[in-house]
């Protein structure tokens, strides 16, 4: 196995070096205008430039603030709503088709309407992103409660548990894996909706950064922005979202559905 570890890192080095070399070569030789494919060095200098001008921290800061706000809202508002809807069969059957429909219409599709209601401002972005995050969270929390195997509920009933205890000891823990998945899915949609909303509304943020850079043919900034968008999501996902999901599944070893 040890050999494989070295083998993987060496393949890594080879692939990275080769792709950077190919990129620089293509940038230098391809018969296209410069702004079509800036070399890696141009992206690095764009990074230095945007840091020196204090623009990059603002763009990253704005985007992160919005997505983390949506995450908090999703967790502390979306999850409770989903659980409440899921607990009683009546509301669950009523809410399921509605939630399914509204979840399928992404936040971005609502953007034109939001522009009319809230205009080209921060509020439109926040509503669009939070809508995109909230519905998958609520939908999956409801799904989670409904998918708890009835055997657990019956066991507690035989022990004379009250409805509240059944909710606390079975329905909520049982729904956790779905809740974690719903949060991850919601934020994945939300992150993309945020980038799109920032492009359309033109407020500071990574979406705006790459969209605005395109207008001035600053392709190096576009590539830098894209790299950061991808890297930020991976960091958020790896450090916050996957642990959330693994903690719920790992603890109970439950397989969803």
């Amino acid at each position, binding site marked *: 196995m040890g050999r494989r570890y070295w083998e993987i890192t060496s393949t890594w080095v080879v692939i990275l070096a080769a792709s950077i070399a190919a990129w620089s070569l293509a940038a230098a030789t391809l018969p296209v205008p410069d702004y079509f494919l800036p070399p890696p060095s141009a992206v690095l200098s764009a990074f230095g430039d945007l840091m020196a001008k204090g623009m990059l921290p603002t763009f990253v800061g704005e985007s992160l603030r919005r997505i983390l706000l949506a995450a908090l809202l999703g967790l502390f508002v979306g999850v409770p709503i989903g659980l409440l809807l899921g607990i009683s069969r009546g509301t669950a059957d009523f809410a399921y088709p509605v939630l399914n429909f509204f979840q399928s219409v992404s936040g971005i599709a609502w953007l034109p309407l939001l522009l009319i209601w809230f205009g080209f401002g921060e509020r439109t972005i926040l509503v669009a992103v939070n809508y995109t995050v909230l519905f998958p969270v609520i939908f999956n929390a409801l799904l989670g409660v409904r998918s708890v195997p009835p055997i657990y509920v019956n066991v507690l009933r035989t022990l004379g548990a009250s409805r509240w205890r059944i909710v606390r000891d079975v329905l909520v823990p049982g729904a956790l894996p779905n809740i974690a998945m719903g949060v991850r899915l919601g934020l994945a949609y939300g992150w993309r909706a945020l980038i799109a909303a920032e492009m359309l509304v033109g407020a500071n943020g990574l979406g705006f950064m790459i969209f605005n850079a395109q207008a001035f043919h600053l392709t190096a900034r576009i590539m830098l922005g894209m790299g950061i968008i991808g890297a930020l999501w*991976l960091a958020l996902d790896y450090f916050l979202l996957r642990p959330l999901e693994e903690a719920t599944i790992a603890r109970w070893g439950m397989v969803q559905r």
Partner: protein
Amino acid sequence: MDGGALGLSLLEPMKGSAMSRLVLLRHRSVVFLLVMAVAWGGWQLFLAMTAPQRIDPALQPALSAGAPVAVAVTLGFAPENFHIRLFQSYGVVSGVRGTTVLLNRVSPDDLRRIARYYWVKRISVQSEGVR
């Protein structure tokens, strides 16, 4: 959606099997949050401390008086649209001279906020800056 669908195993290809996944798991996300908090806090502290150096002493009386002032904000580079829009949120941008932005009717509090931007070189009284 299974756990791996959107994530990746870039940073954990060869995890030691000795430590149980759960301990490592909690460790990883808590460290991330701590590092972010400390970095953010340190950064704000750094900005707060370096801010006064950027304000020209001549502006002190106007600041203590509490009335809006007209200032010249000198940057280390020619301002882009981004900076102009930023300054417009603090006062009225009356002109740009190379790397200096002329900003009128800035309240003392806003002035201190502008001074916190690390990319701002110096904030001086406008008349003197214009000559």
